[in-house]
């Protein structure tokens, strides 16, 4: 660990030698190194301290191209390490000024890190997203209905019916998402419900109503996929999407152990990481309407980046 070099932390694992990472480049383009800290290993890449000082990081993170490269490189390293053993992925942009700082950062949290690593051993994260699809029934319903009154009244009736149908559909989708998440969480060792992605992020026109993460041992993956298939058939108003296996990003949090609680915070950390299936729920309102835009069937706006993919 030389002076004048900062360390970008990719993750923490138990056992790893730098040779096992040969050829792998980290964020910033440098080779990935395994730095032993007690019985843990910090997986790092050296970066130029100037480019990774806080102000520079802020600038860079605002640069989509930079962000994409950094995130992709980070993920590639995390995934590579994860194939060799359990890993706690570090949050993007965890940077240490020098070797001693890196060592201290990991060492101070070694107990919590070990605990969570144990819990994540031989586990993978699977992502499940549900999108509310618009059924054909709904679309035709709007034009039906009793006639009477003038054209204006008919318009208002249709409009009202359309709004009611839209609301009912949203409600149904939210309930479906709830049911799907509950069922999947029941099978998984741990589950998290993340905020549904906005259309512009998901690239999908339909509103996302579930963005779940599920922690599973390898041998349950097939069972999980089968359950998802069944759920997909049971909830035709939802389109389900499976991603994974992922390194356990969603279950690596030490939560409150950021404070000096290495020993005392242990039990709590374990709890927060694992076993609270379905409790952690950061989705807002359950219906993908986090900021009022998501649930609005009218605001298609070409789905952000690559446009119009359904």
């Amino acid at each position, binding site marked *: 660990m030389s002076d004048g070099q900062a360390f970008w932390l990719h993750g923490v694992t138990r056992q790893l030698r730098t040779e096992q990472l040969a050829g792998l480049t980290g964020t910033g383009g440098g080779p990935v190194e395994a730095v032993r800290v007690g019985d843990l290993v910090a997986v790092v890449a050296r970066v130029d301290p100037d480019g990774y000082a806080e102000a520079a990081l802020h600038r860079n993170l605002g640069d989509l191209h930079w962000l994409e490269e950094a995130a992709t490189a980070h993920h590639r390293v995390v995934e590579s390490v994860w194939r060799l053993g359990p890993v706690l992925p570090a949050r993007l942009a*965890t940077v240490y000024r020098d070797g001693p700082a890196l060592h201290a*950062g990991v060492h101070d949290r070694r107990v919590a890190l070990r605990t969570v690593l144990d819990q994540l051993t031989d586990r993978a994260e699977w992502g499940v997203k549900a999108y509310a699809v618009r059924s054909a029934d709904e679309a035709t319903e709007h034009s039906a209905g009793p006639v009477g009154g003038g054209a204006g009244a008919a318009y208002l009736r249709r409009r009202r019916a359309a709004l009611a149908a839209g609301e009912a559909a949203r409600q149904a989708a939210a309930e479906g998402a709830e049911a799907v998440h509950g069922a999947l969480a029941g099978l998984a060792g741990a589950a998290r419900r993340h905020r549904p992605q906005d259309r512009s992020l998901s690239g999908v026109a339909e509103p996302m109503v579930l963005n779940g993460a599920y922690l599973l041992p390898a041998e349950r993956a097939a069972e999980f996929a089968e359950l998802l298939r069944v759920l997909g058939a049971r909830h035709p108003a939802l389109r389900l999407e499976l991603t994974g296996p992922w390194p356990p990003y*969603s279950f690596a949090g030490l939560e409150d152990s950021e404070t000096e609680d290495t020993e005392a915070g242990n039990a709590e950390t374990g709890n927060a990481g694992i076993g609270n299936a379905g409790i952690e729920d950061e989705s807002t309102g359950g219906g993908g309407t986090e900021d009022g835009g998501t649930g609005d069937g009218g605001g298609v706006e070409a789905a952000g980046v690559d446009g119009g993919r359904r």
Partner: protein
Amino acid sequence: MTDVLPQPTYGHGHGRPATGDTGNLADILERVLDRGVVIAGDIRVNLLDIELLTIKLRLVVASVDTAREMGIDWWEHDPFLGGRQRGSVGRGAGPEGPDAAALPEGTGRRTAEER
């Protein structure tokens, strides 16, 4: 932007499980920015909002509280941060928190929240 389209999906009773679909940039960004273990770094940039893929970025804010915990203040010597006050760094500062206010022009969050 290489690939922000969703990869193969399944539902409605068909499709294969366990295909390693982890190449979606949106999903990667969401995970690396929003999840993962938070260990005290000298620098920890806390992105509270991961809707960064939009053209209109909603960029967010650093929290260097952990560095503060460790008594590290080296960035304060950075000319970019010359005006920054020591007391401006607080635990748990959100997007509207003092951290954001203390950032120099142009390096802080950009909140283009319209869509």
